[in-house]
Structures are given as C-alpha cells and as structure tokens.
C-alpha cells in the first residue's frame, strides 16, 4: 500500500465517499421527508394563525404558544400526562423488576410465568383496551363483580373524572411491565452466581443483597428502561380511543391524543403544530440526556 501514488489514494478515498453517500442517501431522503421536514413544518406552522375560508394564515409569532398556556384544557392535559408518566414509569419498572426476579428463579411453571408476563406486550394496545373494557364496565364488569362480593357499590371506572385516568394508567402498566421485564431478565442472567454466594457467606439478607448488589449492577439496565418508559409515556395512547376518548371532562386526556383531536377533530392545525413542537422539545431534552448518559457508559468500558 505504501507504494500507491498519492493521486490513486485520493481517487480511492473520493470513490469511498461517493459510495458512502450513495448508499446512505435513500434512507437519508426518507428520514428527511418523514422526520426532519415535518418537524420543521410543525415549527413553521406553529408561528402562523389558522387558515379559514375567509382569511388566509398570517404570521402570528408566538401567539399560538401563548394561547396554549392560557388554555385550561392544555394545562389539564399537561397535568394528566405528567401524572400519567409519574405513576406509570415507576410502577411498570418496579413490577418489571419483581417479575424478572421471579422469572429468573427455578420456580414451578417458570415457562408459563414468563409467557404470562410477556403476553400483554405482544397484543395490539387497541385489542388490549377492548379486553380491559369488560373489566371496567360498571355493574357487569369483572372488577365490579369481584368488589361486589365484598359488598362494594358498583363504580363507573371509566366514566367519572376521579378514576378515569387511573384506569388508563393501570392498562399502561399492565402493557409495559412485561416488556421491561425482558431487559431485567437478560441483565440478571449476566450477574455471576458467585456474588450471591459471597453475600450469603457474609450473612447478608435477601433485601440487603437486592439493595447492595443487584440494584447497583442493574443500574445501566434501569437507565435504558427509563428512557424507553419516558418515550412511551408520550407515545402510548391507543387505549384512550377505546376506553375513555380522553374523557370525562378531559380527565384522562393525554398530549398525543390532544394533538390528534386538535388537528383532526377541531381542525386547528396551528395549535396542533405548537403542541407537537412542545412535545418534540421535551423528547429532544430526553435525547440529550440519553446521549450524555450513553457517552459516560462507553467511557467506563
């Protein structure tokens, strides 16, 4: 190679670059058309007023954003989504960890346990919501029948503002825990059994072993799951279409559903665009945090 004349090497390098760009370009074009361009489009459109049959859109600056923050529904939806995330994320991660600890032991019927935990992940959310609908139906639903045995009055779980969001949260936790379990299960299997024996010799209790040994070792997995859970807390809304449609009185409305409704039911594209931009901003912040976290993890290796 050392004898290769300079211009030939340059030629090679140019050809490599050309091929590289050529191979990457179909994907890059599609990414541009369906990710970067629409994101830019949303930002642009969020700065204009709504087009009506009488008036074309005109530049409005940040007005759409100001309207949003003055809109009680928006504040309600943000509050809902924050509560939804604040409950769903820790609950599904904690249950996933418990599931993984169990599924990793030599318990009776382990294959069934693993399948049972993971099956919700494989169901379409829209179908899962149908199944849950029967549980929540007042009076004749399974939940009311069971609580009825203990003399409790029937509850309209999906139809009253106090419980609707919680009913939606329960479905999300049910759907997510098994998915996250898989990652914990994989991580647990890489932990050498000597650690457990060493802890046993030291006389450590199960709780101590969990807190001092397992949880720190599972930390990278937890971070990875956390990022997924954060993304999902924006993304998972399919069940709203079946269970509550965001109601009653916006009690269970989440951001993505609100974007959908604003754009396709109320035809208020600028407001929907402003909402989209706000959600993308939050996701972008998560991305930055994630990339930093990833960097640090790579340095440790």
């Amino acid at each position, binding site marked *: 190679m050392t004898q290769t004349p300079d211009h030939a090497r340059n030629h090679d390098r140019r050809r*490599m670059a050309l091929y590289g760009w050529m191979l990457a370009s179909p*994907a890059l074009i599609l990414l541009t058309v369906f990710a970067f361009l629409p994101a830019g489009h949303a930002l642009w459109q969020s700065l204009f007023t709504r087009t009506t049959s009488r008036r074309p859109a005109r530049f409005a600056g940040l007005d759409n954003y100001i309207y949003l923050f003055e809109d009680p529904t928006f504040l309600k939806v943000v509050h809902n989504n924050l509560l939804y995330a604040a409950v769903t994320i820790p609950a599904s991660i904690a249950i996933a960890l418990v599931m993984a600890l169990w599924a990793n032991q030599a318990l009776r019927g382990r294959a069934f346990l693993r399948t049972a935990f993971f099956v919700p992940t494989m169901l379409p959310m829209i179908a899962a919501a149908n199944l849950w609908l029967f549980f929540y139906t007042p009076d004749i639903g399974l939940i009311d029948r069971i609580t009825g045995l203990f003399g409790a009055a029937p509850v309209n779980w999906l139809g009253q503002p106090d419980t609707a969001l919680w009913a939606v949260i329960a479905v999300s936790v049910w759907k997510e825990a098994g998915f996250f379990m*898989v990652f914990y299960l994989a991580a647990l299997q890489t932990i050498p059994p000597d650690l457990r024996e060493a802890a046993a010799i030291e006389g450590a209790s199960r709780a101590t072993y969990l807190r001092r040994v397992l949880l720190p070792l599972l930390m990278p997995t937890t971070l990875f799951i956390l990022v997924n859970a954060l993304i999902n807390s924006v993304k998972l809304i399919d069940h709203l279409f079946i269970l509550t449609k965001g109601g009653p009185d916006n009690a269970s409305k989440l951001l993505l559903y609100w974007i959908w409704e604003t754009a396709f039911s109320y035809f208020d594209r600028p407001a929907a665009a402003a909402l989209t931009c706000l959600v993308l901003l939050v996701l972008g912040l998560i991305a930055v945090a994630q990339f930093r976290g990833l960097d640090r993890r790579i340095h440790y290796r």
Partner: protein
Amino acid sequence: MTARALTPPALTLTLDTLGAWVLALVWIAPLGFAAWAAVHSPTDAVGFRLSAPLTLSNFATAWEGTPWLRYFLNSFALVSTVLAGQFLLCTLAGFAFARFAFPGRELVFYAVLLQLFILPEVLIVDNYAIASALGLFDTILGIGLPYMASAFGIFLMRQAFRQVPVELEEAARIEGCGWAGVLWRVYIPAAKPTYLAYALVSVATHWNNFLWPLVITNSAETRPLTVGLSLFAAPESGVNIAVISAATLMTVAPLLLAFLIFQRQFIQAFLRAGIR
C-alpha cells in the same frame, strides 16, 4: 439457584412461587376472560355464568360483521412492505455508516440517531400533510413509508456489520467482489441473526400499530386490522361483549400464535431491539 443461606429456603420458594403465580394470573386475566366470553352466548357472558354451554356462534357473528379478511390481507401487506423497505434501506445505510469513510459521516449519523426521539407518532399531523401531498393518502405504502428509514434499524445494522471481521471482506475483494458483492456475500449472511431479530420486532410493532394507520387510511381497502377492530368495537356499533371478545381474539391470534411458537426468538429479538 436456591437462596440457600440467605433465608429459610423452602418457605421463601413457596412464597415466591405463590406471589409469581398470582401476578401471572392477574396479568393473563384479561386475555383469559376474553377467551371465556368469546365461547359463551352474550347473555351468559354478561351474566358471568360459569357453567353455561359453549358456543362458537360469536366468532361467526363477528366474522360476518365486517370485512376481516380484507383487514388481515391489509395488515399482512403492510408488515411485508414495511419490512422489505426497512431491510433494503437500513442495510444500505448501515453498511455505509459501518464501512465507508465519507466526510460528514459522524454528523449525519448523529442526525439519524436524533430520529429515535422525533417519534413518527408525534408528527402525525405534519406527516399526514406530507403523505397527502405525495398522493399517499389511503394507501398501504402511505402507512408504511414513514417507518422505512428507521434510525433504529440503521443503528442495528451498522452495529452488526461492524462486528464482521475485515479479513472476510478482504478475502472476498481478492476474489474480485465489488462493494455490492461484498455486502451480499459477506455482510448480509453474517448479520442473519440481527435480521431475524429486527424482523420479529418490526412485524410485531407494525401489526399492532394503530394511530398512524387510523389517520392515513379512510377505506376498508387499506385499513389494517387494528383500525378495523377499533371501528367494529366502537360503542356506537352496538356489538356485545361476547362478539367483541371473539373479534379481539381473532385479531390477536396470528401474532399470539407466532409468539407462542417462536417465544425464545421473540424475547431475544426484543432484547436486541430495545427501542423499536
């Protein structure tokens, strides 16, 4: 694997087994109840009579209620289209990022990774405008196209290709292979497990996807199963619990069966493909 000295073994194991089984039964209960309701008459299902006779009429009623066959074919066409597109685009781009040095590669790769967080789900409104402008409204391609250049797929393929020893490529080059030959003969065969994992996750994701197909379809000719099911089960359509259960089971059956058969592969696939 028993917790020998940590706690009295027998008792812990029994408690663990009990707890695990209770949780598992709770987790599978919605599906179990649907399976039970689907094979009972609507009044028996609502009345929750455990000893009621079995029937398959709900499946017949559900099947006749809406063009399911069409929806199945649409879903099938959709997942195949998406998968074929993803394989092609992500292979080429992953190969480029793994093996070709070109100016701006790092920067472009970071831009690609950014898409992991610019969710197509959040961009429904603007993607709708773009897909409509391209004449893709109410087409299978319109449902699939936004997902084809998946940043996750590109990342996955790049990782897989980077693990292929360069010696293999050099050997193939001596044999006279160009970049296409090297890709086809060396890299793609070496990445087979990654392709399988990616395929399983992709099929599961797009078989189950709902919001974007709901927005971009308008007719039974293109609608996938999930959207069909949501219309069928809407309260306005006045269908009862037993029939909805039957319809729900029908829609989840193909993927659920596939999962039960390829369970190990599915779990491996989800491990490889954390971010879908």
